[in-house]
């Protein structure tokens, strides 16, 4: 929760700072909002304690195992 709030505050402060420039360029504004939404979404996922680490655990079990086999030889 703490990290989500801080992220929103950071994004909001930066948005206020560059709002005039963003209003001139619609495409730029769209990208900013998209990335901000992704950022907040990821923070919510982490807040809900969903296991994002399965991605790296999977890599550790596949590519990591290859390295371990090379070391064993």
């Amino acid at each position: 929760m703490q990290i989500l709030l801080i992220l929103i505050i950071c994004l909001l402060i930066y948005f206020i700072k560059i709002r005039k420039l963003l209003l001139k360029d619609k495409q730029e504004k769209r990208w900013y909002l998209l990335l901000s939404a992704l950022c907040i979404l990821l923070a919510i996922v982490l807040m809900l304690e969903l296991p994002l680490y399965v991605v790296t655990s999977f890599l550790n079990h596949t590519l990591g195992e290859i390295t371990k086999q090379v070391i064993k030889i």
Partner: protein
Amino acid sequence: MKQEQLSPFQLTCLIGNFIFTGVIISVPQILMEISKQNTWIVIMFTYVLTTTVIYIICRKPAKLEKLKSIFYFDKRPWFKNVFISVLFMYLLFIYIRDFRIFNSFIDGILLPDTPFDIIALLTTLTLIYISLTGIEVIARVTVIHFITISIVVILLPFFLLNEIQLANLLPFGGLHSGAEILKSTYIFFPWMTEAIVIVFLFVFLHPISHLKKAGIIGISCGFILLFILIFLNITVLGVAIASEATYPNIKLIQQINLTDFLDRLDLVIEVVWIPTMLCKLSLLLFTLNRLFNTFRRKDSDFDIVPLALLLSLTIRLFKNNIDAIEYSFFTWPTKGLLLELIIVTLFLMLKRGKSHKSKGNGQKIS
């Protein structure tokens, strides 16, 4: 792309810092666990391999001059897009790995009472501040800090003179030493070949004819510093301690005991090292932002803030410190090697293709 320029000396420091600063955190531990007292040979062996790769990439500067437009925002053929995508992925994985290791180190050693997420966020805000200033400022900051850490590392043997035991280097060689050195090289090589970030940095270099020289000197500086540290790890700590410690270089600098009052120099040295790591991460963030801009064909830095904040959350991609260490020790060598192989191959094909095309154009004109 903005007309920013790097001098050969700045490129040398950027490359040296890029390969040196991330490796010293915990990689020496796994190297010494595998190749024991012969680890110093691994450094020399890997140096030859890495230099060869960079030599192949950087030769024929005239061809590279024509390739400078590779990251422009105009329409590109699919082949260039594949190259940029793979490079983006590669640098993204380095950023995620180094960011996590760096924050784990601060959390574990320097600020154990501060929440991990807050450390990550504060690091990110620092990185945003540096990255927004552009490659020229990143290069200037890197030059200062890389020179400082180089001086510190070169002085380390003198600080530790009373602790060095050359007997720890023995027995030299051994029955299985050849295989052990090769295994260590398999782990170490992808870490050092991170110097292929030069395929992005060369567009800023002026004059381009100095690229090969700058790249090889940069790699040499990084390797010399690493050689000094590995040599000291073996001779001061011994293989038994160095291969068990999570952060062997911290253990090493804690051995400095010059007089009765100068026995806590480790904190001072850590303070010198932290900015070098920030320089590497800010260079990575800058590069990622530029490559992202290349995809969306927009030359602006507005998106660096949400992008960096998004990346700051990737620290949670690792369950715990052990998971992160396992990733950097075992997963990264294979993954990095594959990506590096693809990047180098694609870059050489692009270079070759460009020169053939220009040759063809030349014939048409004549």
